[in-house]
């Protein structure tokens, strides 16, 4: 019997300019093996990580954006996205990938993983954690 803690992975950087975003995703996937209560937060430039239509072929970079759609299989089903960060960057929910998870307790119904919250709501999410890891 182990204690389940609430882990929040905070993402505040755009996807390809630095390695932070890709490393965060690696750590989340590794951490998912430990059966903890894992959430991810996307604010500031971090919201750019979730945009759809990323094509990195010409830039010669690994496109890791499809990985976000696999997180549900690792029971990472809460992706908090800050509304103000979207607004500031001229983005809406339509600009982001459609990320779903299957709820095995509800006949495998597909449910949205992205939860849009206000800045104050994001502060509440952060204050509700046992561990906060920033990238």
């Amino acid at each position: 019997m182990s204690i389940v803690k609430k882990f929040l992975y905070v993402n505040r950087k755009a996807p390809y300019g630095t390695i932070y975003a890709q490393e965060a995703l690696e750590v989340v996937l590794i951490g998912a093996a430990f059966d903890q209560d894992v959430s991810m937060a996307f604010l500031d430039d971090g919201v750019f990580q979730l945009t759809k239509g990323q094509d990195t072929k010409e830039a010669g970079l690994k496109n890791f954006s499809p990985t976000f759609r696999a997180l549900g299989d690792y029971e990472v089903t809460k992706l908090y996205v800050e509304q103000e960060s979207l607004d500031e960057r001229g983005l809406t929910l339509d600009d982001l990938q459609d990320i779903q998870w299957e709820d095995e307790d509800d006949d495998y119904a597909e449910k949205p993983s992205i939860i849009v919250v206000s800045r104050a709501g994001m502060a509440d999410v952060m204050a509700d954690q046992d561990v906060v890891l920033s990238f």
Partner: protein
Amino acid sequence: MATLHTVNKSPFQNQTLISCLGHVKDGDSVLLMEDGVYGAMTGNAMSEVVAGMGANVKLFVLGADVSARGIDAGRVAEGITSVNYEEFVGMAASCDRVQNWL
């Protein structure tokens, strides 16, 4: 249920300090360290913003990083408490969580 937030980048380099202060809860602590200490200074373009947004939290600065940068202690804004490494460790140990704003 208080959080210790740490900021280690100058507010003139990026928006990290502003974002941090936009997400703190009343009673939280914010420690400015490394290049973050420039956010603790008076008489610059960020001073009023920091004072305003940080009004409901406790602001701290790591003294060693202030000294290292040749910032006179008198230039650290009133109400910002200087701490040493030992006190920093004590703060980290006694809060509910630490959030490093990278």
